[in-house]
């Protein structure tokens, strides 16, 4: 299509073209107040890890990472749930609330973590409020998602911990009931106290038995010592008697003299017989004194000592035997108690094992609960999506500016007018140019005249 044909067409259809342009102008004048819009922008920073790493509500997810990815945030900004909250806080009418999604635009800048949230409205103040409210709701909602992923886990863990605690209390009551009537069974150790005592007593019994055996041997030995020291005691007694010693010395001298005399003289030597007699008397005297003194061995310290040792050994043996008998008596008593409390001990042992298992499970649950609560607190505190820029002004939107809007209307209606002109011209079969005449007649056409 060349320019000449365009001009000719527009000229032929000028009425329609002018009518369309007039209508366009009228529409522009009427629509301008309704189409003028103002845009306010709030800016969010989403410290977001990829939401593809783990599921959004996975409690194992790193609590410091955002629960919602940046791409999801863009969709979330225009979601019905968020916009309904904003509409309620803005007290929008139902119709305005329905239009709100079309007035919201959220698109991250070149893939960064910055997310501008733009709201357009005919009222600039309302646009500012809506942009700020939308940013706040987005941040709050993502934070709630960050903590919600822990809430269910915490609730479950809390419930389980409570159940475990109840079971532990029940076990404690049962153990307490079993041990309250039996002195030898404690809640903590059950029958272990008896066993411990029995073991100690048995060790003591064995020690005492060994001691008694030693005492018996010692007593037997000690009992022989007085008899063994009897001769020694006689010697000790005589040697400690001065007259006996003197007599014995004299006897020795006389005997020596006698022997010398006998060695140097014959039996006939006069002195020998007398001296022999003296020696015999002295010997008899010594024997008499000795027999008299030895008759009472208690005068010997050694004998007395031996006798005392024998007595002491016998006393020790008797004492140890008495202790052994007492220990054996205690052992018999404890064994009787143990035999009497055998069923209760088994029950307590079972309860104790069950309680230990419960206690272990309780500890694990408590640890998980503590970690979950800590993660929740961390997720709630850090705030992975924060508002870093609040809307303070609402400049006119590009298409809401009268100049731009007028240009858009002009382009649109001019295009419409041209289109309409060509449509009408195409529908007009009249002879409008030399080409159509030439086509009709199949003859050469001269310049028009007139």
């Amino acid at each position, binding site marked *: 299509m060349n320019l000449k044909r365009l001009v000719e067409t527009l000229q032929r259809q000028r009425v329609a073209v002018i009518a369309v342009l007039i209508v366009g102008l009228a529409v522009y004048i009427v629509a301008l107040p309704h189409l003028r819009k103002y845009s306010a922008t709030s800016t969010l920073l989403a410290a977001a890890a990829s939401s593809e790493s783990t599921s959004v509500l996975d409690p194992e997810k790193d609590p410091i990472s955002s629960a919602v990815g940046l791409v999801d945030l863009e969709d979330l900004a225009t979601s019905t749930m968020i916009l309904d909250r904003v509409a309620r806080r803005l007290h929008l009418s139902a119709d305005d609330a329905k239009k709100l999604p079309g007035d919201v635009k959220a698109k991250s800048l070149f893939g960064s973590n910055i997310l501008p949230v733009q709201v357009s409205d005919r009222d600039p103040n309302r646009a500012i409020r809506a942009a700020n409210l939308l940013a706040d709701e987005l941040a709050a909602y993502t934070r709630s998602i960050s903590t919600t992923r822990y809430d269910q886990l915490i609730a479950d863990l809390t419930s389980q911990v409570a159940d475990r605690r109840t079971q532990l209390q029940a076990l404690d009551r049962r153990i307490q009931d079993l041990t309250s009537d039996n002195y030898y069974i404690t809640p903590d150790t059950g029958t272990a106290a008896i066993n411990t005592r029995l073991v100690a007593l048995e060790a003591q019994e064995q020690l005492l038995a060994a001691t008694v055996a030693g005492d018996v041997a010692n007593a037997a030995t000690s009992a022989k010592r007085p008899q063994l020291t009897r001769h020694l005691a006689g010697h000790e007694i005589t040697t400690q008697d001065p007259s006996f010693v003197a007599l014995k010395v004299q006897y020795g001298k006389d005997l020596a003299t006698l022997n010398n005399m006998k060695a140097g003289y014959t039996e006939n030597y006069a002195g020998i017989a007398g001296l022999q007699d003296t020696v015999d008397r002295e010997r008899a005297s010594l024997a008499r004194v000795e027999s008299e003194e030895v008759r009472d061995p208690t005068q010997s310290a050694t004998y007395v000592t031996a006798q005392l040792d024998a007595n002491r050994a016998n006393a020790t043996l008797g004492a140890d035997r008495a202790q052994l008998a007492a220990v054996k008596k205690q052992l018999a008593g404890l064994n009787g108690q143990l035999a009497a409390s055998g069923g209760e001990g088994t029950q307590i042992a079972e309860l104790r094992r069950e309680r230990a298992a419960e206690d272990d499970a309780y500890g694990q649950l408590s640890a998980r609960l503590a970690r979950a609560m800590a993660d929740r607190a961390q997720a709630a505190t850090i705030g992975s999506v924060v508002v870093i820029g609040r809307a303070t002004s609402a400049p006119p939107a590009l298409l809401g500016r009268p100049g731009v809007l007028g240009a858009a209307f002009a382009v649109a209606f001019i295009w419409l007018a041209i289109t309409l002109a060509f449509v009408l011209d195409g529908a007009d079969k009249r002879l409008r*140019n030399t080409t159509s005449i030439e086509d009709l007649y199949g003859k050469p056409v001269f310049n028009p005249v*007139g």
Partner: protein
Amino acid sequence: MYQLEESFRILRVTLEGRYEGPSIFAVTSAHRGDGAAYVAAGLARAFAESGEETLLIGASEHSANAELSIAENTRGTLTPLGVMRQSPVFAQLHVLTLAPATRERPVARDIETMLVEMRETHRAIVVAADPVPRSASALQFARAADGVLISVRFGRSPLPADRELVRLLDESGVTTIGVVPTRGRRAAAAIRSSSTTIVPVEYEGSSRLATRKVEVAS
């Protein structure tokens, strides 16, 4: 107005280049109001202003006004076919207005005889004919002419008569020179009123036309 005159001159020059010597041109159309008489009158004047002896034959009922506008207030000479007048502006231009009886029921022999006679005294003979599909005399003039010009009005819708015109001319062995488009309303007005087109050319531009006649002749 100047462009209008120039358009006819261009048409005249075109025909002069194609037809040497005395020539007869018939101007017809497929539909009334297409401006055949208007074209014929303008073409005749163009020939006349160039100094050529020219005869405009008003064979159309609607060409009467045009003929009168050219030879208005002049005394005519009665001929067997009608009244012949001389233009007061162009001495070389003569206008023959056919009598109604001749126009409605022409005799082929009379027409041929007349044209043969007129060819001897006129360089160009231009016949303003009725629409061929509607008039037998128009077809007779067309057959007698050296060439036929078809006048078509811009802005009207194509009609079956257009195809019929072409078919009749082709079947009659008529040489169709070409088609001359006319601005419909202005051409019709020229036909209806002698003061719209023809008169201004003659009265207001007479001196200019005379000057141009010299220029064209040169």
